[in-house]
């Protein structure tokens, strides 16, 4: 069964919808129709599955952490999305959307990026498929994710600086939407998470369900049963919804982990921004509050609507961790398992580590959504040259 489809209006319960300027409505409708048609077309699916396997390296493995499990007192398994081509789960969605855009006759991909992982994945797909690519990135993020900026340029993409507001992911999305309003005839907006107007939250989730299916099979093979807990970090929520999708029908506990400074579910109230209704950090007047997180990929005041729905019905719960806890978790995984995680999934590990008492004896599958190469320079600044 898995997660259910949204209503024809793109609603998950009261959340979701399609709140975009009139100019973009026909494009959203066209995209939805094209996606439905492609998803039912064996030729499209075969092409996508082929690229996921032979280009991106799927299936990604699942690693049992023997050293860290002993230290934490639970049985910890990592879903290794960090080993995908381009270094994160983002490639699953991007390959799906880029093939779809090409099928729709679009010649240019527009994307926003926070940590740069979605931007790199989009630039990669554009290079592969011979499309133009323009990535918007906040000025603050360009500063802390230099390596990914250079990677995007190497791949032939244009990187444009978002100078407005908090100059992070939220503002990059604003700029990408403004670009799309002007370029909609030849451009596809390759949105990087399970957010935005319908059909994006649903479509992007469908593209990430592959990792949930794999994780369920792999964890069953290792554990002989389903895990007690599945956890993932939540920015917009794409890697989390991908892995949750594999376990919603089980009695597995689903835990999303947000940064304390960007806890949309944890401290937000329902609002409407970037195309959908969802929990949102905002002031009493409806002005969006700027998020603040060590991790550029989670530095976002909103969350995908399906997470708001899962929270509202109590099927998933959402915890938050501080930047300081994340830094410790980043070092912990590096030292105990020889895996340098991205700062984003280090949030999920920070929660497991903090809540180890309540997790004692349980099996925990953690979605390691990306690798830490992009964060090494930032961590060097924080930790000093010895990395201690």
């Amino acid at each position: 069964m898995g997660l259910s489809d949204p209503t024809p209006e793109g609603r998950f319960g009261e959340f979701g919808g399609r709140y975009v300027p009139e100019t973009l409505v026909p494009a959203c409708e066209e995209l939805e129709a094209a996606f439905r048609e492609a998803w039912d077309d064996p030729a499209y699916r075969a092409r996508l599955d082929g690229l996921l396997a032979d280009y991106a390296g799927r299936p990604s493995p699942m690693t049992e952490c023997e050293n860290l499990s002993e230290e934490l007192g639970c049985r910890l398994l990592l879903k290794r999305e960090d080993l995908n081509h381009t270094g994160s789960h983002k490639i699953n969605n991007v390959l799906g959307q880029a093939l779809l855009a090409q099928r729709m006759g679009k010649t240019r991909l527009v994307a926003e990026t926070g940590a740069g992982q979605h931007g790199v994945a989009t630039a990669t797909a554009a290079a592969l498929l011979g499309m133009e690519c323009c990535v918007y990135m906040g000025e603050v993020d360009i500063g802390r994710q230099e390596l990914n900026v250079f990677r995007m340029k190497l791949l032939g993409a244009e990187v444009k600086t978002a100078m407005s507001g908090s100059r992070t992911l939220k503002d990059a999305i604003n700029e990408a939407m403004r670009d799309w309003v002007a370029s909609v005839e030849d451009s596809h907006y390759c949105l990087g998470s399970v957010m935005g107007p319908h059909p994006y939250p649903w479509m992007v989730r469908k593209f990430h369900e592959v990792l949930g299916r794999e994780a369920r099979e792999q964890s069953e093979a290792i554990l002989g049963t389903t895990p007690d807990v599945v956890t993932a970090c939540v920015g917009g929520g794409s890697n989390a919804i991908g892995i949750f999708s594999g376990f919603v029908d089980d009695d597995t506990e689903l835990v999303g982990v947000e940064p304390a400074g960007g806890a949309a579910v944890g401290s937000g109230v329902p609002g409407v921004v970037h195309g959908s209704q969802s929990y949102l950090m905002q002031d009493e007047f409806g002005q969006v509050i700027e998020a603040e997180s060590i991790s550029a990929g989670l530095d976002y005041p909103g969350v995908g609507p399906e997470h708001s729905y899962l929270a509202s019905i109590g099927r998933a719960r959402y915890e938050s961790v501080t930047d300081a806890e994340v830094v410790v978790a980043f070092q912990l995984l590096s030292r105990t398992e020889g895996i340098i995680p991205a700062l984003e999934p280090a949030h999920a590990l920070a929660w497991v580590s903090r809540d180890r008492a309540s997790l004692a004896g349980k099996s925990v599958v953690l979605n390691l959504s990306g690798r830490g190469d992009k964060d090494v320079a930032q961590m060097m600044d924080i930790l000093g040259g010895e990395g201690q």
Partner: protein
Amino acid sequence: MPGPVETALRNRRAAGGKALVAYVTGGLGDDWTDTVRAVADAGADVIEIGVPFSDPVMDGPTIQAANDRALASGATPTSILDQVRGIDAGVPLAVMTYYNIAFRAGLERFAASLVDAGVSGCILPDLPLEETGPWVEAADDVGIETILLAAPTASDERLSRVCARSRGFVYGVGLLGVTGVRAELAASASIIAARLKQVTDLPVLVGVGVGTPGQAVEASAAGDGVVVGSAVVQRMLDGAGPAGVAELVAEFRAALDAS
């Protein structure tokens, strides 16, 4: 019965003229309410009061900068509407903001606060036809005219449905893009006006990308008038003051009257 916005624009059309709607950013500078009055005196038929939102995706650099400045000076929807109440501009006023401002306040409460401030109309550029239901219900109940945008990308069938649901006037989006002054008027401006005139008797005004009196004349030829936003707001940002802004609006008025 048509509301004040629609009535004002129909009257202008009946008199053989072209309508001018000017946009003023609420809360921008200490004298913005004087600017509203001066703009009315200079010949605007209706004035849009922009209520700044933190994430204005339909707006270009000029209105973004005005928003940021107003918000930084402490303007809130409540403080702006409180000031609007005292304006008495002599022409109908419409608020332009984004949906979350209304959603957060509560739709009925927000609609009532517009009435209370003496505002007649409301424009929410991120609320497309399919999502208007709950808002227009609240707005219709208290007589607020909800002006809908009609985009060049829409089919004729969609344009008819937008017009049927719009109140006050239909806001034809003049180009594919966000607000801002362009060197030349896009060809799409006249096309959207003509397409809308085919499907509605409501006043048809074209906005977005109408930045000079010459462009206003060109854009209003096929329709009933124009909305001028960024050009006016740029004057405010430049510190022209109420008189300086009014001077620009008078130029638009004169050009339209001479056309």
